[in-house]
Structures are given as C-alpha cells and as structure tokens.
C-alpha cells in the first residue's frame, strides 16, 4: 500500500524509478518471448492472453505505460495472428485472437481504474499526514496500525516506536470505554474528551473522534481515531474564567461605586450628529439637546453595591430607568460633554468632578472616572467608577472658610499693632488740613488779601485730604473680611504700599526700608489683600528683629525678583538678631519670639501663600539677620487656586 511507504519522499522516488526500469526491461523481454511463442510455435492456444501480464507489470509506472503497453501488445497479437493464421478460415484461431484482444483491453481498463483509485488513496494518506491533529488507526486488539506525524508530534512517540504497540498501554488513556462502545455500536462513531499521557509524562486533554473500521462484510476490525489537543485552550479558558471571577469579585466588593455601562449608542449619536472637523466638546456645549439625548442612550447593565448605595437605588434596573447619573442636573452637562469628547478623541480614560443627584434627589459631588474596557467594541463596555467627594468638598469648604477667617483675624491683629501708626498717619494730614484752613482764612482776611497764598492753601488741603483718605483706604482694605479674590497685582506697588503703611513703625525702630525690583516681567495674579497682609507681616517682623541692635544700622531690604520662569520671589532681608534654631520653625503656629505675640502671624502667612500656590521660606543671613520670603506663581489655573488649603494648626 502506498500509505505504508516510508515518510521520506526522496528515497521513495529513487526506489520507484529503479523498480520501473526493471519492470520495463522485464516487460520487453516477456513481450518478445510471448510474441515468439504466439507467432512461431504451433501451440493452438490463446498465448496472447499472457500479454495481460505485461500490462500489469507496467501498470505501476503510470497511465501512459498502461495504455502504451496495451496498444503495443494488441499490435503484437495482431501481427502474430496475421503471420500464423492470416489465411485461416474463420474458426478457432479468430476466436482466440478476439479473446486475447478482449483480455488485453479489460486488463488495460482495470489497471487504469486501479491506478486512479491508488492516486486518490495516496492523496488521502497525504492529507492524513498533513493534518495537525493526530490520526491513529488501531485494529480490534487495540494494536496501533497507523500513526501520523501529528501523533508523533503530540504524543512524542515516533511511528516506528508506536506501530504494533497496544494503544492503551502506550498512551495510558483514560477513556469512557462503555460510553464509547455503546456509541460505536449504535452510530459507528464517537466523539468526546479523553485524557492521555505523553511520552514525557504530561497529561493531555484531547478532543477525540473515533470511527469504527469495518471489513467488506461489515465486521468491526478496529478504530480510526483523530484527536486534537485541548490542554492549552482549556488552560486559557480556565484562566479567563478565573480572571473574570477576579474582576467580578473586585467589581462587587470595591469600596467605591462601579458601574458597567454601554456607551455605544450614546457615542454613535454624538458622532453621527456632529459634523466632521468640529470640536466635540464645544459642539456639545452649543447643542445641549444632543447631549441630553445621548445621555438618555447610556445603558447601565451592572452596578456594584457601593454604586447602589451611593445613588440610593435598590436594584440596577432602578439606576438604568432613573438615569440618575447623568443628564439630570445642569451641573453634570459639562462633565458629560468632557467624557464624550475624551472618548471620541480616542482616549480610553476620562476623569472629571461633577455634581449629580441620587434617586432620592440628594445632591452629591462625585469624581467620575470612565475607562473603556478592552473587551468592549465601540464603547459597548465601559467601566464607570464614581467617588463620592461630597464630604471631602464640605470639609474643604470649611477649611477654606476657617482659613479666610483666620487670615482676617491675623489682619485685624496686625492692624491693632499698627494702630498707633495708623492714627499718626491719619492725624498728620488732618492737622495740616486744619492749619492750611486757618492760614487760608488769615490770608483772605488780611487788609490786602493774598489770593495766591489762599489758592496754595486750598491745594494743600485737597492733597492732605487725599493723603488721609489713602491711609484710611489701605487700612480698610486690610480690615475687610472677604473671600479671596484673584486679581492682577503689581508686586512692586503692593510692597511700596505696605512700606508706606509701616513708615512710622520704621521710623520708631530707626530703620530704613529699601525696596529693589529686578527682572519684573509683569503683574501676577493673586489676592491683593492677603498678599499685602503677608508683606506687612514680614516687614513688621523684620522691624521687630532690628530692635535693640546698636552696633549696626537698622536696615531692611525687600528684594522682588521675577527671574524665575514660573514664579516671582519676594524676600525680606533684615540686619536684626537672626532666628535661633531651625529658621523654618517660625512658620509653625504659636512660634513666637515676642513676649506679647500669639505666634500666628507667620503661620497665617504660610497658609495664605500656599493657598495661592506659593511657598514660604526662612533662613539666617551669612553676616547677621535673617531673610524671610515667599514665592508666588505668575499664573496658576483657576481650579488649582484655593483648592488645596493647608490645615493651619
């Protein structure tokens, strides 16, 4: 059988061609002998029938050899007939001639059919070889009769090793034998899973299909089976299942709200209605009806218990019907637009803080985090996590409020310390006004009124009135209790204002205050009142530090430096006593060097500066005195401002 030929195609060809040459030679010699016997011997028999042997000999060489040998032997038969019996009357010789021709013809036809059948069989055998699956043929005693390459690969035994062995011994099969027998008996086939062992001892799970072999009489003679390895796919399946289980455990037991959503319809609606090239977010803002329609298309098909609790729902269905999450409050529309736009832009993650309502109408602040799951197509599987930040925001607002109040208290305390200065700063211009008023009247009531002097007096009255009003205005600004307001501030002007407010304090401390500006590139955005409070505080402390110094001038040097890329730096350098211990400690609450001080001034300063995105710093100078200063960013995003207040105490 062709199927039993060796696996090596090259050697098969070689043997075949040698055999062919031998067959050809044999056939020629046989033909010659038959011809001689037929033509020359006196035997009265159908010697030419022997030509069928020649045809059969050449049959393995191919179709052309079969037809060729048939034709040639027919011709030889005819020649021999003509030589011996051409003149014979119609009789036995003619009959033998006819029989011989018919025999040759039948032999040719049968050989051709046999050849075609062999070809088909050979192809089928090749297919079996090519199959990745194992193909094993066993006889009735379970002895292996055929073993393809797939079987070699999978089981690790070569064909030579496997053939003739008992299959159940070789592969230590675990098979449901009764079920198989029943099925084979009934249908002639069985398919199912079996477990076998490889040569290296590995257990294999196989999807196997068995077919009963029967002989022409219908008796069972063995089994043809084909099997495929399921081990890898089983393992992958098991892994997938366990991974899904893990996901589901995490999903269900997470302490934060998690919802599985289908955004595919919503996204399709958004993308279909939006013209190409339009910015998704701004387009949604200007078309709120589309946004709302899309929000209605959001499907929620799963939610964990934390999500149900957060949105005060009893079942997932309530969440879906209520559409609580989105589209109910005007506040949540920008958040939705942000999420849709992010996803439309190809992002698989979007996060935003928004305000939404529960099923019972309670308003909550929530941070929404949307992530597109990898196994969903077109946003059909999106995981939405929601963190309730209501309490955090309330606490934050409380801290902000406290900070504002404390900062205000600090300013009032500061003004209390400055009361003497303030009174003086207001009284001086008031006294001047009175003097000019009285003197103006005198100039006017003189025998020769001097109107030039009168006009001068009136001018001075006006300018002194303004001077007093300015002082009052500065004090009022500091005394005001307002929520922080960002405005564009010229740091140099702010510092000069503070310096003039402290002019008399400086005089009392016999100190000079010098202000130096460098690399200023423009105004900064900050809260004017609070930052001025900080500057006044730093200057007051600097003046205080110089008190009692007798061996050197009392000097305070304010340096405003805008050289850094992102922030402006203000440093107050004094020639005072310096700071004992760690200089940074001065920003701690209740740290004070003054017997009558509370020690909150600089701690409030730190809160103010850090609340505006800046940093405070303190260090002792190389010679004497200390430098206390702060930085403020040139421009910080609005949402970052005041959002991270530091707890004061």
């Amino acid at each position: 059988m062709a199927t039993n030929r060796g696996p090596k195609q090259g050697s098969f060809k070689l043997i075949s061609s040698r055999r062919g040459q031998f067959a050809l030679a044999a056939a020629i010699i046989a033909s010659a002998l038959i011809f001689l016997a037929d033509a020359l011997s006196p035997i009265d028999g159908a010697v030419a029938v022997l030509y069928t042997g020649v045809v059969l000999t050449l049959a393995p060489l191919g179709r052309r050899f079969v037809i060729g040998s048939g034709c040639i032997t027919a011709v030889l038969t005819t020649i021999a007939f003509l030589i011996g019996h051409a003149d014979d009357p119609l009789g036995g010789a003619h009959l033998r001639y006819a029989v011989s021709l018919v025999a040759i013809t039948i032999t040719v036809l049968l050989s051709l059919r046999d050849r075609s059948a062999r070809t088909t069989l050979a192809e089928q055998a090749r297919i079996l070889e090519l199959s990745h699956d194992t193909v094993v043929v066993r006889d009735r005693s379970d002895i292996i009769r055929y073993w393809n390459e797939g079987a070699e690969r999978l089981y690790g035994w070569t064909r030579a090793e496997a053939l003739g062995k008992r299959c159940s011994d070789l592969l230590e099969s675990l098979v449901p034998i009764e079920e198989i027998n029943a099925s084979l008996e009934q249908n002639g086939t069985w398919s199912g899973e079996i477990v076998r062992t490889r040569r290296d001892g590995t257990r294999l799970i196989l999807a196997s299909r068995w077919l009963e072999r029967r002989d022409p009489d219908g008796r069972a003679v063995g089994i043809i089976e084909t099997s495929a390895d399921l081990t890898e796919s089983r393992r992958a399946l098991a892994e997938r299942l366990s991974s899904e289980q893990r996901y589901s455990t995490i999903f269900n037991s997470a302490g934060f709200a998690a919802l599985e959503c289908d955004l595919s319809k919503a996204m399709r609606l958004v993308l279909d209605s939006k013209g190409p090239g339009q910015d998704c977010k701004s387009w949604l803002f200007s078309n709120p009806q589309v946004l709302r329609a899309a929000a209605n298309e959001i499907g929620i098909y799963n939610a964990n218990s934390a999500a149900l609790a957060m949105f005060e729902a009893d079942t997932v269905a309530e969440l879906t019907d209520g559409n609580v999450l989105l589209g109910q409050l005007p506040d949540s529309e920008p958040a939705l637009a942000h999420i849709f736009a992010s996803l439309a832009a190809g992002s698989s993650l979007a996060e935003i803080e928004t305000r939404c309502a529960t099923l019972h109408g309670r308003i909550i602040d929530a941070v929404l985090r949307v992530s597109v799951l990898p196994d969903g197509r077109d946003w059909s599987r999106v995981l939405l996590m929601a963190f309730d930040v209501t309490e955090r925001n309330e606490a934050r607002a409380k801290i902000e409020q406290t900070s504002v109040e404390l900062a205000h208290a600090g300013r009032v305390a500061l003004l209390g310390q400055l009361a003497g200065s303030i009174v003086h700063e207001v009284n001086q211009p008031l006294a001047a006004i009175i003097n000019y008023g009285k003197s103006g009247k005198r100039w006017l009531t003189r025998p020769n009124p001097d109107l030039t002097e009168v006009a001068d007096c009136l001018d001075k009255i006006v300018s002194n009135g303004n001077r007093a009003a300015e002082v009052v205005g500065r004090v009022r600004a500091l005394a005001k209790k307002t929520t922080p307001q960002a405005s564009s501030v010229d740091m140099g002007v702010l510092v000069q204002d503070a310096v003039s407010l402290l002019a008399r304090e400086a005089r009392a401390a016999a100190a000079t205050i010098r202000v130096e500006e460098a690399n200023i590139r423009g105004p900064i955005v900050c809260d004017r009142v609070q930052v001025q409070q900080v500057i006044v505080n730093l200057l007051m402390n600097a003046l205080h530090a110089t008190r009692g110094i007798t061996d050197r001038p009392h000097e305070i040097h304010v340096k405003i430096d805008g050289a850094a890329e992102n922030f402006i730096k203000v440093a107050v350098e004094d020639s005072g006593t310096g700071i004992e211990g760690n200089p940074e400690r001065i920003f701690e609450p209740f740290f004070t060097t003054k017997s009558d001080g509370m020690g909150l001034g600089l701690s409030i300063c730190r809160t103010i500066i850090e609340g505006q995105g800046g940093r405070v710093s303190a260090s002792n100078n190389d010679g004497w005195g200390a430098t206390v200063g702060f930085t403020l960013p040139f421009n910080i995003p609005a949402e970052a401002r005041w959002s991270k207040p530091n707890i004061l105490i």
Partner: protein
Amino acid sequence: MPQGSTICIVDDDDDVRESISSFFRSVGLRVESFGAAENFLESSSVANVDCVITDLHMPGMDGLGLHRELRRRGVGVPVIVMTAYSTPEARAEAKSLGAAAFVDKPVDPEILLHDVEAILGDSSQGPPPTFQ
C-alpha cells in the same frame, strides 16, 4: 504784633511744617522751615532767629537733641517742642533744658501763635509761656 521777627520751624513732616509756616506768614511773621535739625543747625538762621518750633521725633537728631545743641552753642533762643507722643520723661527733659513750651500734636496754630506772640512780646518781660 511782633512784626519782622524770624521764626524757624523744624519738622520732618512736610505738610505739618509747611502748613504752620503758611499760617505764621499769613500773620506777617518771617518764617524759615527745615526738614531736619541738622539742616537748621548748619544754616545761618541759627544766629538771628527769634523763636524755634521743633518736632520732638525726627530721623537723625531729634527735638531735644537740637535743643541741647543750641544750649551747648550758647544760643539762648526760645524753643517750643511739639510732639504727637509726649512722655513724662521727654516733657521733664524739655523743661530742664528750658523749653519755652511743650505742645501736643496736632497743635492748633492759633494757640501756637499765641505762645509765639507771648514769647516774642516777652523777650524781656511779660507772662512766661506755660507748659500745656
């Protein structure tokens, strides 16, 4: 009215100084004003001044220092000391130096004028000016 007398005002606050100066000029007195004690001491006015009005607190030399310096130089001109923050110690020292008057700021220029007139009119006799 002591017409033609010269009065010097020493005060570092421009508005206070100039407003008093304007008032005194309006009644016909000759007034010279100085922003610092040192400036006054360096000027020629020291020699022929009839009355000095000085602020007590000033950067550099203060009012009492000026007073002492004048006495040290033997200048016996009457001195009126003004202050927004009078302390008993300052008042006592001014008295001991022989200040003609010690007045609290803000000072009413009419009263100041009255004191000045009293001092000028009393260059030899008359009622001594009182400490307020």
